[in-house]
């Protein structure tokens, strides 16, 4: 079911959240700049970007803590202008968790339900259900100061979910957790979102987190959205150099377009003797145009033997650094131009006879389909 979930590709689908030409200024500073974005019901949507890119402001406008300077935000068709945070069917999980220190875990979770004036038995039942969902039944009477970081995160999640909001906003939800716990929690969040059929909007600066969890990612920079796409598209078909460099590792080779040959673009670079052949048919380029070629480290091959004469995309260099990560080995190869390439190689075998060593002369190759051309 997950695989076929793509309402954004359906022209008849109505978005749940709609940002229309939204601008937010703080004094002279522009935090969000004429931004338009649709988010659909049931999506796990990530806003990704470096700090100061406007992603948090965007989320706070959705929660109602900030109002747009220009433009309009609608939720399920309703214009949110002038609707205060306490009247929006949206709940937020705060980066600091913002648990009420003077209330026990169950009181924290019940807080939102109490504001709705639900009858007591119903509140108790819902609190129970939430505690079970985040597996904290035994800690209901504890206070936030008596909990570990991971437990607090769960309480914050349960509290935000308790009112069954149309949209759950999560501000750097895993930022305060250590690496192991973060990974586990990522999958838990995905399961919860899936089970509750809720729309999640997550703000994060951690691209790995966004890649793992999101149905779609919006990469933001300087108050604008640079690309909205699935994690796979963002990684394999980045629209700009900023995205290629921000999401994952990448090698950039700069050059000029020479022309098209057999459906492949020929690009002359200083890094390689022969022009490179790149298979990126969607790109519209003209001869002489300056471009950047982006190749992911795992899509390059490093070898000691000279490739066959008919091989394409051959670069030569010497091994500058070797980093052994267990599952991967990362080679840093220094080309004659002084550029350093990063090539990663999966360690498929436990023993390698005569492995590539420091300072060796090596060849780096990549297939025409492995690279993306980015217009400068």
């Amino acid at each position: 079911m997950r695989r076929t979930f793509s309402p954004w590709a359906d022209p008849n689908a109505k978005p749940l959240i709609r940002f229309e030409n939204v601008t937010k200024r703080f004094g002279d500073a522009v935090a969000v700049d004429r931004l338009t974005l649709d988010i659909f019901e049931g999506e796990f949507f990530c806003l990704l970007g470096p700090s100061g890119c406007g992603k948090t402001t965007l989320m706070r406008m959705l929660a109602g803590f900030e109002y747009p300077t220009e433009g309009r935000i609608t939720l399920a068709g309703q214009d949110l202008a002038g609707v205060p945070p306490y009247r929006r069917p949206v709940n937020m999980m705060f980066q600091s968790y913002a648990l009420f220190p003077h209330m026990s875990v169950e009181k924290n979770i019940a807080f939102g339900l109490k504001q709705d004036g639900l009858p007591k038995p119903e509140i108790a039942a819902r609190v129970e259900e939430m505690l079970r969902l985040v597996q904290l039944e035994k800690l209901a009477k504890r206070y936030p100061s008596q909990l570990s970081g991971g437990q607090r995160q769960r309480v914050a999640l349960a509290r935000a979910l308790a009112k069954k909001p149309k949209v759950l906003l999560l501000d750097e939800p895993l930022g305060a957790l250590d690496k192991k716990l973060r990974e586990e929690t990522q999958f838990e969040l995905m399961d919860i979102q899936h089970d509750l059929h809720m729309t999640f909007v997550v703000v994060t600066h951690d691209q790995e987190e966004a890649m793992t969890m999101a149905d779609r990612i919006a990469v933001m920079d300087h108050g604008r959205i640079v690309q909205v796409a699935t994690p796979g598209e963002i990684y394999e078909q980045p629209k700009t150099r900023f995205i290629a460099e921000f999401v994952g590792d990448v090698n950039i080779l700069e050059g000029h377009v020479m022309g098209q040959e057999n459906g492949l673009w020929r690009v002359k670079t200083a890094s390689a003797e022969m022009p490179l052949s790149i298979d990126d048919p969607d790109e519209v380029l003209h001869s002489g145009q300056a471009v950047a070629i982006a190749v992911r480290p795992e899509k390059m091959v490093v070898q000691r033997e000279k490739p066959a004469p008919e091989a394409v995309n051959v670069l030569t260099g010497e091994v500058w650094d070797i980093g052994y990560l267990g599952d991967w080995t990362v080679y840093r190869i220094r080309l004659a131009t002084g550029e350093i390439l990063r090539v990663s190689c999966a360690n498929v075998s436990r023993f390698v006879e005569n492995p590539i060593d420091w300072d060796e002369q090596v060849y780096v190759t990549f297939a025409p389909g492995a690279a993306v051309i980015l217009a400068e």
Partner: protein
Amino acid sequence: MNRRLSLFNVTSLVLGFAFLYLPILLLVVYSFNGSRLVTVWGGFSTQWYAALFRNQALMEAAWVTLRIAFLSAGMATVLGTLAALALTRYGRFPGRTLFTGMVYAPMVMPEVITGLSLLLFFVAVDLDRGFWTITLAHTTLTMCFVTVVVQSRLMTFDRSLEEAAMDLGAPPLRTFFAVTLPLIAPSIVAGFLLAFTLSLDDLVIASFNTGPGATTLPIKIYSQVRLGLSPEINAASTILIGLVTLGVISATLISKRSVLRSRRNV
């Protein structure tokens, strides 16, 4: 850094504390004097405490003092807390610096001037001097202390707690009473105790604004001393010192504990 106590440190410590507290200690000791002569030691006795409680005029003054302290501290706490909220919450409104300075001015204003100007004001609006004028004057004096204490707590207050409450459906006023107030309560209590003790031992402002039937304990003690020292006064002063010390210490402890607790919860 050398953290051990050297002879020099010990000496300066002893001298400093002696300078500050020896006179007070002397007064406390002499309140247990068996002799009628204030300056001659005549053995240990608690008779002056007993005499004090039989002294109608002194007891009445004590009762007036406590009522004034309680009322003025109450009013100062409400006003001071509101001022602290306004100063920390409403960003940079025009004249904010001036307003801050004006709130703190009574702290450094010579008491004689505060007392005199209040007296002139009460005369101008034709308010009969007495219990209520002292209460109002003490409110003016102590409000800024409450503001300082509450403001320092609000500075470290995590605003996302209030945002979370609103996000969960609580309108601003309910957010204030359900989240903000309980969390800053310790500092408000500390501010109240501070205001209470300040009102308790004030002489100057009270004597400017007093009237018939509103003699506070400090005024009473001062006027009695002018007529001649009595060991009863020593006993009364000792009790006053005890009350003030208790108030200040609890105010400090309460605000310290709340700071520790709020730090733990970050």
